[in-house]
């Protein structure tokens, strides 16, 4: 058996359909996720994240390359890989005519768990996801965030060895997101492995042991969030709301990005005073903060995560 929970080698997916242009969604993705890790897959809309998750979760066939889950070839023997995995699909919704308690319990039963285990895990997941007060209300009466929490509760209750979560906290309020993070951390402490996609870079920063940034179907960079932040050339970011037109004056300090009229400069701490002095002389307002994952993403990909490909 392979040592990795997930391993893909040069995975490619090309969509072809009559009358539509050929789309290469994955252009050779190689990736490894070790047991017990939480790994985030980051990328803009259309970068290939969901395609990768769909292939990994046995729902889509790759064009070429290989992918294994706990040593099981996902493409050749998907039925052998499925017992290992559980998936929160992107934009998935629970059955509207089931309550969260019924949704989680019946799902666990459909996966073959005993009544006792399913009942205990259901109650635990309902509690963890803050659904106690609405546990017996039909999902059709719940808010979008509560439905999403129900979906996450359904999947985390499986305690499957490998969980795929495609935008698991979308539509949730900050408190609910933190409940999800805590649940995912607890799951990995129990031994599960998690691969998630997210548009929230703070979520990837707070939650993942490692992350992969994909763009146009390729992995651009991988590593820890800290590695990535360090790679941008400094630990501080100076933001100047009206500095874009004066970008050339700041290039010597470090990496500069102009976004509309806004200019941001990554700078090493020892040159901060010099940069601030220049900003003041040029009548620019400047604020200083730590480099964030968002900044690192912007420099690696060249665009914000919120822009479509």
């Amino acid at each position, binding site marked *: *058996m392979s040592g990795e929970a997930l391993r893909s080698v040069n995975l490619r997916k090309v969509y072809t359909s009559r009358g539509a242009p050929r789309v290469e969604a994955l252009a050779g993705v190689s990736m490894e996720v070790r*047991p*017990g890790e939480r790994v985030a897959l980051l990328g803009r809309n259309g970068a290939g994240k969901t395609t990768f998750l*769909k292939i990994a*979760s*046995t*729902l*889509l*066939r790759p064009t070429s390359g290989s992918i294994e889950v*706990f040593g*099981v070839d996902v493409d050749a*023997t*998907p*039925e*052998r*890989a*499925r*017992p*290992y*995995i*559980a*998936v*929160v*699909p*992107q*934009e*998935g*919704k*629970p*059955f*509207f*005519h*089931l309550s969260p308690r*019924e949704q989680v319990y*019946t*799902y666990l*039963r*459909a*996966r*073959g768990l005993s009544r006792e285990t399913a009942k205990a895990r259901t109650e635990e997941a309902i509690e963890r996801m803050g659904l106690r007060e609405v546990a017996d209300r*039909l999902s059709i009466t719940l808010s979008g965030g509560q439905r999403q929490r129900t*979906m996450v509760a*359904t*999947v985390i209750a*499986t305690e*499957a*060895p490998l969980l*795929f979560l495609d935008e698991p906290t979308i539509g949730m309020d900050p408190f609910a997101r933190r409940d999800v993070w805590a649940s995912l951390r607890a799951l990995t402490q*129990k*031994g*599960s492995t998690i691969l998630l996609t997210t548009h929230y870079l703070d979520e990837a920063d707070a939650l993942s042991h490692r992350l992969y940034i994909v763009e146009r179907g390729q992995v651009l960079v991988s590593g820890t969030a800290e590695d990535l932040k360090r790679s941008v050339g400094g630990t501080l970011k100076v933001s100047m709301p009206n500095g874009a037109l004066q970008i050339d004056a700041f290039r010597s300090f470090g990496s500069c990005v102009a976004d509309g009229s806004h200019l941001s400069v990554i700078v090493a701490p020892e040159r901060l005073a010099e940069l601030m002095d220049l900003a003041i002389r040029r009548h620019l307002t400047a604020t200083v903060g730590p480099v964030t994952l968002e900044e690192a993403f912007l420099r690696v990909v060249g665009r914000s995560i919120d822009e479509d490909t």
Partner: protein
Amino acid sequence: MRTPSVPTGARSFQGLAAFFWTEALVQLHEELAMATSMVVQVVLLVFVWILNPALIGVALIGSVVFSAFALGQRVLNEAAYVRIDHKATDLYLAGPLSPEGYFLGMAGGILLIYITPVAILGALAVVVAHLSLATGLLLLGLSGLVWMFAASIGYVFSTFFRDNRAIWAYSSLFFNVFGVLPPVFYPLGLFPQALHPIVLLMPPSAAAAILQSAIGVTHLAPGEFSLALLGLVTETVCVLALAIYWARRTVRSK
């Protein structure tokens, strides 16, 4: 760290019973759909009763067959709705639940919840049309085949759509072409003779014709009887096999 044991893989039909109860629970909460499930049958029965009360026994038998078809056809709408609107098919099928267990569990769960009013129609048919035990069992068996045919073809068709609104049009078309227009609620003899081979190959009207023949309302030549019975059995078995194959195949897109 957890080291999963060597996987055995999902077994055939795994999870069927559990998903059967899941779907039954879903349907149980849809009171409005349950309340309106018999509207068409009752309306057609009223029409027949007004136009020719002597045919009410035939119409009641037809209403049971028609209900079996309509119940099976609910799988088309439900499977498409869960896949397209809820995107929940991925949740269920990317796991140990077998695809055929998902399809058959869904069909069975719907059947369980909607069967009571159909059973009442069946009881009325037994009383009004004076059905013998053998004919009653024949009604049960043929209705079961019609249900299985409709559920299977419904599941297969559900996989072709990307928009639920397109399904409504096809669903209505199947409903009327297979159930309302052909001689299901009225005797085969009232339908143009030249078109008999066609309606005898359509499961609901084939089942109705066999039952009408059993109670002496319709005379079927030996060739027609064989066509209806063999056609119904063969079509049902083939479509069921296709649906199971298709369920397994369409878990994964290409």
